[in-house]
């Protein structure tokens, strides 16, 4: 299992993502100017502030050569995990439905939250973002719920940003692209309070096995 972790100018979570990936395989960084993913089996678009978050978070990163390669990789069924800014990039690129807006209280939020996966299992994973309010028109929300594309919701009372229907993470229709605002790569060691993030990396690995 070889992971490729994208790195844009302004990324800041690529090191933790590499570490998390290496707990379940090999991993290499992919610089944003690289047009070739080099035969990776899965891709992580990590968190941070790609291109300074200028214009809108993720809006400029989607035009990078590496993201063109990721779009082709995803179209071919390759697994892609977008975390925080990576989720914003994937939404801007049209690889995932919806958009991430400024938090409803205008505050940057940084804390551990409880999530529920599709089968109602709880995960404890940190969030840290200022633009994490998931939004899509009601008709689109109905569709993605009906198709089972809501991968994670904030547990009752835990929604940190005003996300529609408590949505914390969604997949594309095919299910091979997953984006979420919480940071599983920061929850892979008991030292930092939770290892629940490993389950998300293992789920991506499992989908290619």
């Amino acid at each position, binding site marked *: 299992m070889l992971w490729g972790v994208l790195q844009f100018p302004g990324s800041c979570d690529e090191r933790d993502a590499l570490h998390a990936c290496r707990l379940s395989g090999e991993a290499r960084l992919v610089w944003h100017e690289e047009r070739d993913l080099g035969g990776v089996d899965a891709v992580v678009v990590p968190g941070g502030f790609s291109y300074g978050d200028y*214009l*809108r978070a993720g*809006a*400029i990163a989607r*035009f990078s050569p590496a993201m063109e390669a990721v779009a082709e990789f995803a179209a071919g069924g390759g697994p892609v995990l977008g975390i925080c800014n990576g989720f914003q990039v994937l939404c*801007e690129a049209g690889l995932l439905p*919806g*958009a991430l*807006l*400024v*938090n*409803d*209280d*205008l505050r940057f939020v940084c804390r551990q939250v409880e999530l529920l996966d599709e089968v109602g299992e709880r995960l404890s994973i940190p969030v840290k973002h200022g633009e994490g*309010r998931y*939004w*899509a*028109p009601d008709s689109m929300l109905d569709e993605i719920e009906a198709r089972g594309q809501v991968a994670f919701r904030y547990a009752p009372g835990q929604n940190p940003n*005003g996300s529609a229907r408590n949505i914390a993470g969604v997949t594309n229709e095919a299910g091979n692209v997953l984006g979420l605002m919480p940071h599983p790569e920061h929850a892979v060691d008991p030292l930092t309070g939770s290892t629940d993030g490993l389950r998300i990396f293992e789920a991506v690995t499992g989908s290619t096995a």
Partner: protein
Amino acid sequence: MLIRPKEGILDPQGKAVERALPALGFEGIEHVRVGRMVELEADDPERLAELCEKLLANPLIEDFEIETIDGA
């Protein structure tokens, strides 16, 4: 280009501005929406709408208007 959040989408920046106004003595102001304006010079204004749709605005969440000023 004038870009603003679509109607019906909560605009927390606009709300924060609106809440601050009465303290400054500005009464009777409602529905504040904060967007952004992009100025540019273009040889071919025909393609500006496409530019807005692809980059300057996110059509899912934002509306845009284009005003051209000739020979500026």
